[in-house]
């Protein structure tokens, strides 16, 4: 199954690499959120007297600037939107008949599902990394703590990758289940915004009403966001921060395991003969 999964994944990635323009919409979203949203909605400017740097730091979990806080959230947002709309390629594969060609080949249906998951994950993690770089280079952007190293970077992107993997399972199974792009877009629009707004991607959940806080606390986006943000803001973690980080990662691993199983069975059903 691995050889067939890789063959299908490489096919999708070759197409993606040969069409650099496909990366641009995702890239623009990153730039707009960080440079425009991050600057224009900077909470430090919301009241006439302004917040002191201490107040900003307290409000945003120790982040020295709002964009430092926002970066992890924007990357989560990029993951959600691009995973969701990445399924369009799979719907097109069905509509153009390519999927039927694959279905008449003697390969496990799981190879189609896992190649969908893998190709989306690679594409979106690349965008996530570009977003991180953009946050670093824009004026008044991401400020990394002293001593932020490779291990921290691995921890940050490991958290994002776990979230991405879970999301990719859900949206790949969804894309394989629908028959038209319209249906996919309708469902995706219904799912993505609540997922983002019911997390602390854009604002700390401490300011949310209790009911929303409860939902945000179990939202995997909040967990990935929190884990990545802990490292982005603090670099080396204290033992209590490390414990929070470890809990978030374990939670994400559990979510990924559940979503992989659900996605796998949903895709198997969607790909079975009708």
């Amino acid at each position, binding site marked *: 199954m691995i*050889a067939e999964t890789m*063959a299908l994944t490489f096919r999708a990635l070759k*197409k993606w690499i040969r069409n650099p323009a496909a990366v641009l919409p995702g890239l623009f979203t990153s730039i707009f959120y960080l440079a425009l949203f991050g600057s224009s909605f900077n909470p430090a400017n919301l009241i006439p007297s302004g917040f002191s740097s201490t107040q900003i730091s307290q409000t945003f979990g120790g982040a020295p600037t709002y964009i430092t806080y926002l970066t992890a959230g924007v990357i989560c947002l990029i993951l959600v939107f691009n995973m969701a709309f990445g399924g369009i390629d799979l719907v097109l594969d069905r509509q153009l*008949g*390519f999927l039927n*060609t694959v279905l*008449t080949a*003697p390969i496990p249906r799981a190879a189609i599902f896992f190649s969908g998951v893998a190709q989306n994950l690679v594409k979106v993690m690349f965008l996530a990394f570009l977003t991180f770089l953009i946050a670093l280079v824009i004026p008044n952007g991401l400020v990394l703590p002293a001593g932020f190293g490779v291990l921290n970077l691995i921890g940050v992107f490991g958290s994002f990758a776990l979230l991405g993997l879970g999301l990719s399972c859900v949206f790949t199974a969804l894309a394989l289940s629908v028959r038209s792009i319209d249906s996919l877009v309708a469902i995706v629009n219904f799912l993505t915004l609540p997922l983002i707004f019911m997390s602390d991607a854009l604002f700390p959940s401490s300011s949310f009403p209790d009911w929303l806080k409860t939902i945000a606390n179990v939202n995997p986006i909040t967990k990935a966001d929190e884990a990545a943000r802990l490292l982005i803001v603090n670099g080396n973690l204290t033992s209590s921060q490390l414990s929070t980080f470890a809990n978030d990662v374990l939670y994400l691993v559990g979510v990924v395991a559940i979503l992989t199983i659900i996605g796998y069975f949903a895709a198997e059903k969607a790909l079975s003969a009708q």
Partner: protein
Amino acid sequence: MTKIIEADHLTKIYKGKVKAVDDISFAVDEGEIFGFLGPNGAGKTTTIKMLDTLATITSGKAFVAGHDVHREPGAVRDSIGVVPQELTADDELSGMENIVLAANLHHVQGSEARRRSAELLKLVDLEDAAGRKVRTFSGGMRRRLQLAMGLVHMPKVLFLDEPTLGLDIQTRKKMWDYIGRLNKERGLTVFMTTHYLEEADSLCNRIAIIDKGVIKLSGSPAELKQKLGGDILTLELAETPVDLTEFFKGIPDVSDVTRTGQVYRIKLPRTEKALPIIVEGVVRKNIEIKEISFTKPTLDQVFLEITGKSMRDEDASESDSVFQNFIMERATS
């Protein structure tokens, strides 16, 4: 002769409502080219989809290369190549990359995949275009590439669903040549649907005509034409209130008469005897003959006889559909 495809009382009902295929049975011998003809919506593609495991069978049984389609779909997929009517080769990949991908999906990997791909690209005269992206290919090149993609794992049975749809006559004939050669040189069994009757006539060892999900007639092209019962005289008369159907039927050696307006189609088992009597009879009745034509039986006439529609009408109606336009657009780009 070994039966390589066997369909036994196959029925397909979609969503519990639409009966696309209704209790059909047939068998295809190993090494034969079997043609499936029928109007749009007759059940041709649904039959292929059941045989190539894409669609479930509502009732009945089917065996391909000795494997039960329902119980051993994996073994069936191992034994078959499928060339769909849609142009499914990936536009952004080269011809070689597409065919290597098809090989990889059939457990042919590495240098063996590349070797077979190169050999097949040569067979379909695409070796010079192997490195070009498929989006630069003409419709005919795409069809040839798809044919090669369906063969890269050396299947026992090749399913071709409208393999020459949207191609000009020259390219179509080239495709027939490839299919014929594959059948003769490699002993490949081919199960094909087509809209082009001359294609079925020249390529197929046997043909089945399906209409409204039911096989109406099957046999070799020669047998089918023989079943028409003779030559056909088409007689167009000037406007007259007189119906000559019974008059024609009363003439010895006239086996059947159908009338559409002032046009009579008269079936003649022995033309040389009946023709003078018919013409003389019409002249005596002082009715002007506007046009008279005489044809040997063709598959188009067999088709018309069985389905009540000419294949040309089918072509015209199909070209109106959005899907068909889409296929044509890709095929001719």
